[in-house]
Structure formats: structure tokens, C-alpha cells
């Protein structure tokens, strides 16, 4: 018995590599974009106008809300106070500060808050992270839905305390 060779219909199939490489590149770039290479940054606006007059004692209405931050010799937080009221020296102090500011402004979004100003008076050696925490606590709060609720947006620094 003889078998005939089936020459007709025999084709060599070559895989097309170009589209595959294209897809691989696209996937690679897609994952590069979704990966957070650089963590996002936000900022706080600080109001330090040139030649601003120091608030006088006669005009009580324009007196800023004063937040005092003290440091130990290593630059760690030693105490937080809001208008001379001690709030502690741990992270809870910043929560108390946040509540205290809310008490001062009444309710978030109060139109009176546009005229209010918080003055941060920190010790020279205090680590900057605590100052940012204090600014954050005065600026507002993140609600349960993850949305920021603004309290007071005008923040300024007092004169730097001399280094010992």
C-alpha cells in the first residue's frame, strides 16, 4: 500500500512577534503608571505678608489664635498649648488641638473663619514634623468619607525663638 504525500495544504506557521512585544510594552507601561513611584505631595499655605503690623492688645477681635509648641533638648515634642491651655505632649494633643480649634470656630465653614488666623509659636529646636502636625490640626480634619473639612486656613509663624 502506498501513501501519497500530502504536499498540498502544508504551510509553515510563524508566530508574529511584533504585536506580542507591543502588548508586553503596553502592559509594562501600564503597570509603571499604576505603581506609585513618587508619593503625592500636598501643601499648606502660610500667610506671611511683608510689613504686617503686630496685633495690638487693644484690638481683641483681630488677635490670632495662638498655638504654642515646646520641645525637649532632642527636638521631640514636649507640649502643645492652645491659647495658654495645655493639651499634652503626645499625638492625642493634636487631636485635642483639632477639637479646640473647632470649638473656637463654632462649625466648619463658618464665614467668620475667613478672618481668623492661627499663629504657630514653636521652640527653635522642635522637629518640623510636629509643626506640620499642628498646622494640619488647625487647618481641618478628614471626615469619615475621607473628604477634608476645612477649619482655619490662615496660618502664620511667630518670630523664631533664638537657639540656645
Amino acid at each position, binding site marked *: 500500500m502506498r501513501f501519497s504525500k500530502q504536499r498540498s495544504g502544508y504551510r509553515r506557521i510563524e508566530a508574529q512577534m*511584533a*504585536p506580542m512585544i*507591543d502588548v508586553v*510594552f*503596553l502592559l509594562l*507601561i*501600564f503597570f*509603571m*503608571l499604576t505603581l506609585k*513611584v*513618587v*508619593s*503625592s*505631595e*500636598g*501643601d*499648606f*499655605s*502660610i*500667610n*506671611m*505678608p*511683608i510689613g504686617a503690623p503686630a496685633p495690638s492688645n487693644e484690638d481683641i477681635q483681630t488677635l490670632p489664635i495662638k498655638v504654642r*509648641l515646646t520641645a525637649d533638648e532632642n*527636638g521631640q515634642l514636649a507640649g502643645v498649648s492652645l491659647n495658654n491651655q495645655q493639651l499634652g505632649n503626645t499625638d492625642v494633643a493634636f487631636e485635642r488641638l483639632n477639637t479646640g480649634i473647632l470649638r473656637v470656630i463654632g462649625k466648619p465653614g463658618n464665614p467668620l473663619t475667613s478672618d481668623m488666623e492661627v499663629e504657630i509659636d*514653636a*521652640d*527653635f*529646636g*522642635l*522637629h*518640623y*514634623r*510636629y*509643626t*506640620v*502636625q499642628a*498646622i*494640619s490640626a488647625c*487647618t*481641618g*480634619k*478628614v471626615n469619615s468619607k*475621607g473628604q*477634608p473639612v476645612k477649619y482655619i486656613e490662615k496660618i502664620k*509663624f511667630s*518670630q*523664631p*525663638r533664638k*537657639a540656645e
Partner: protein
Amino acid sequence: MRFHKHDPFLSEADMTPMIDVVFQLIAFFMVIINFEATQADERVKLPSSDLARPTKVKPDQELVLNIGFVRDEDGNPLDPEPFVFYAGDEKIRISDMAAKLNLEAEFFQRKNKVANDSIKTTVIIRADAEVPTGMIQELIKLCREAKFEKFHLKAKSEEP
């Protein structure tokens, strides 16, 4: 005169590689823009805050000042006093920044053709979490003396 008949076969351009290339270019530029958006300096470890959110309106002109420490391999500061990482690799003490800030102020004044009063440029301060607050205040004071009056303090966002 006789004309040759053209072959009626229509050659169609393959669009697939062209679309692929366009996608690649779009993705490439998206990556590049993402990197350019932040003038981050890896030597500066920013403090974090859950309220720090990226600004919706970017300032027209900004002067970014990175303040941090020169650290060893373990991350410990080699020098207890921080530096301003100015124009790339230049390291300047905060107390020596006055001259540089005056130069910057002069540049922005000339660029905007404004009088010798205030400058509308926003100074963006990117300071390390361990820098003493007094140093930042000193720097802001020097900036104010150079006629800058708008300041933004950068912090790492803690978005969920």
C-alpha cells in the same frame, strides 16, 4: 496611444502598528509629565499629613527650596545643621541663603518687570521632618527680607 491598465488590487495600510506606536507615545509622555510635576529631592524626607492634598491651582511662578540633611548609609545625619539643596548639588547653610534669595528675587522682578516691592512668586518649602522649626522660620524670615511673601509648606499626603 495605449494606456496600461492598472492592477485593480488596492493596498491598504496596516493601522495596528501605528496605533501601537501612538499608545506608546501617549504612555511615555504621561510618565514624563508625572516625573516632572514634582521637584522632589530624595535627600528630603517630608513629614506626612492626612490633610495635605495637592493644590488644584498651581502657582504661576514658584521657587522650590529643599531643606534637609546630608545623611550616611544608615540614614543618620552627618552634620546636625541642615542644608538648603540649592540648584541641584549645591549645599548652602540657611544662614548663608540671604544672597541667593536676593538674586532670585531680582530675577523674578526682572522677569515680571515689577517695581521693587513685593514679588508674587510662591516659595515652596520642602523641608525634612527632622529639621528644627526655627531654621524654617529663619528661612522664611530671609525670604520675607528678599520681598517674597507667599509660602507653601510641602508635606507627604496620606490619602487612603
